[in-house]
């Protein structure tokens, strides 16, 4: 195995070694080389957001990001947010009004919502829609996604 095929990734705060071709999207390295199932495969083309992870805190589509381009950036998946205070607020809000139906897209929704609130703790309704536009929910849970983000951000109903 050539040396350039071994990558040390910082995933959820831990250094993990992945053997993969440099062009393998981070999605497949996370799911199938590191066994992280929180990140989901939907479209493989950056169109649905199911594979959203954080790269140094910013949401990225892991289906389009080659593992060779990750470098020393910190990768965070849903599994890595379990003790995060902002994520806890999102989880609580998500459960309070039971956002999910099939649930498949929800990891990506949470990752995007987390990045939004980290950056903009009290987003307007328009800002929520703009931030979440790239995350498809095939079941149509959008009204509750809006509502849960409002609850998590501690804002009153408009």
């Amino acid at each position, binding site marked *: 195995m050539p040396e350039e095929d071994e990558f040390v990734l910082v995933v959820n705060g831990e250094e993990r070694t992945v053997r*993969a*071709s440099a*062009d*393998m*999207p981070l999605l*497949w390295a996370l*799911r*199938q*080389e590191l*066994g*992280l*199932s*929180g990140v*989901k*495969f*939907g*479209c*493989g*083309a950056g*169109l*649905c957001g*199911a594979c959203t992870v954080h790269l140094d805190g910013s949401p990225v589509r892991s289906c389009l990001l080659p593992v060779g381009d990750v470098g020393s950036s910190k990768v965070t*998946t*849903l*599994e890595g947010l*379990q003790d995060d205070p902002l994520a806890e607020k999102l*989880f609580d809000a*998500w*459960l309070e*009004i*039971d*956002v*999910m*139906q*099939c*649930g*498949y*897209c*929800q*990891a990506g929704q*949470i990752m995007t919502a987390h990045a939004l609130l980290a950056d903009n703790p009290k987003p307007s309704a328009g800002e*929520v*829609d*703009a931030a*979440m*536009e790239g*995350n*498809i*929910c*095939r*079941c*149509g*849970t*959008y*009204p*509750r*996604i*809006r509502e849960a983000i409002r609850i998590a951000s501690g804002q009153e109903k408009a």
Partner: protein
Amino acid sequence: MMAGRKQAVVMDRRAFLSVSALAGGGMALSLTMPGLALGAHHEDTGMLTAYVAIDSSGDVTITAKNPEIGQGVKTSLPMLIAEELDCEWSRVKVVQADFDPSRYQRQRAGGSLAIRFEWLPMRQAGAAARQMLLAAAAEASGLPAGEFSTRDGFVHHAASGRKWSYGELADAAARQPAPDLSRVRLKDPKDFRIIGKPAVGVDSERVLRGEALFGIDTNMPGMLHAVLETPPAHGGRLRSADTSAAKAARGVVAVLKLDGIGGPDAMSDCVAVIATNHWYAEQARKLLKLEWDVSAAQGHSLDAYAKEAARLHDANSGTVLRSDGDATARLAEAAKVVRARYSYPFIAHATLEPQNCTALYTDGALEMWAPTQTPERGVGMIERLLGIPADKQTLHITRIGGGFGRRLFADYMVQAAALAKAMPGKPIQMLWNRAEDTKRDFYRPGGWHSFAAGLDEDGGLIAFTDHFATFGSGGKPDRTAAMQPTHFPAGLVDDLLFTVDVMDTVIPMGPLRAPGSNALAYAFQGFLDEVAEAAGKDLPGLMLELCAEDRMIGEDVNGWGTGWAFRTSRARGVIERVLKDCGWAKRPRGGGRGLGFGFYFSHQGYFAEVADVSVEGENVKVHKVWVAADVGSHIVNPMGAEAQVTGAIIDGLAEAMGQRISFTDGVIEQQNFDTFPLGRISATPDIAISWVITDNAPSGLGEPALPPAIPALTNAIYAASGKRIRELPIQSWS
């Protein structure tokens, strides 16, 4: 105590309860009963089963036998049991059953049938367990059973102030004789404490923790990943294959040529690439050099179908589906005749979790992990086509990333099983990419309608005709491309004629959420909106007029949700309610904004919806949708019920706005969400729901809110802009 299928049919609708002691202390109760007969056409005369265990700590475990596809049955059915058992909902754990027909008989998600079928038996099972706990308390204390009551997992004796937890009594309850189910006492609905209260989905927290619940999440040591290269056109056959480059590619373990078996709903000719990672398999797939014979699909193009439909309409051909009176003669003498043609395209299911299945074949036995709505179908096909006996198959039903009808098919199970059988001892996960998932679907068929309506001088609807050009074989429409002869306004207009022409197609068809209804609602309610206007009325006014007399139309025949008897007074109830909610009488007209109305009855649900829409140039914005719904006497879980209604409406709006599957010579032309757009958050309207509670058996909510959303939208576009939408989708993406 398990009775065989044959016996069940002649069992005279008697239910059986069997009770046993739990290994670690406690009681287990299983309920076995004949399926609800739904008339001669209903295929399912199997048995329904509930399984409830109460352990010595008082924890209640309920087995969910049906697959969960996001419609919430894994929560709502256990709620029915827990209500009558009278335990605390927080003490209930729900576990997913594997596929086991000897035990569970019907294990299926689809048709919005769960609540309809299980409303009574699930409650009876809970009530029976409660009765045995009461009997155990009476036996232990020597006091008459009538002096005991239950609440939140305890048996109380009011006179003495004593109480026993269910956990304490469970062992003794397991020794009580099972009660006669038909005599167990059910709660007075006014005493319900679980039914009708919002409950969070039993697995929601686990999803948020990122647990591996979905089919695609199945993982085990040494698991390999397979992708399939399938014919570019439907019906294609493999002529030759050069797989050498693919075999040599990184990570590839095997490349297998598989011959098609059993038709498009099983497996077409294909080449599988099996690698250590899905990515390697996909990369190697691009190196395959295959030659295909695609002649079978020559001429099977959407444009050609549309031309043929127009020719059929021009020729006024067709066989009679229903003929009442003499519609043709009445049209000729009508004061005014309205004519219009409506069409809708093929569309795909686009479940967000692509089709996948994991399989392991060892020593003649097959173990599978599958996101399937119909486990028995896959197991049966694998037995028939691959020769692996059903009793040598173990099927784990995983959580499902969206069903919508796609996973009523078992093609992906057959394919994964074929791969596993070809590579014994190796666990293999087969996963389709998005393009493959879009290309290998069983589509909602397109259809073309040519309508005519005759009005008398007072604007009364005196004649109605529809000539429907659809798909099927041998002159018979495919089940998902058919319409019922009882379709509205049949039975309510004296002179009515429905005719049908059937075209052949190689494009696979299948049920998509609210099958049939998701297309017919738009065509019929869109045309009736035109008829109402020509008559100087509005659509809800015309509907109320047609439904003025309380009547029952048709009989229950289980036709993909549309074959149910339709009661006019229930339609009136929801129409009147939605008009009130939206302020219909004072609605704005013109100026780029308008309200549109749609009503539809499917899956035993009555739904009237109004959309508030702005139109600016090509841009359509839906501001709000009002919904009035009648699904009977109870909303089991309002949290889940409202989610189903809003989700179905958002789904319907997205279908109408931009979804279309086109094809030329059998080659599907859409691949991903850029050309097959799903609904997004910014397009999501406010949705206001009113439940119209009536004294009817509760029915399901997975589907019936969807169909009327589409005509509500298209009729609103007309109200706002004066533009009639007679062809879907509204926005063109080609």
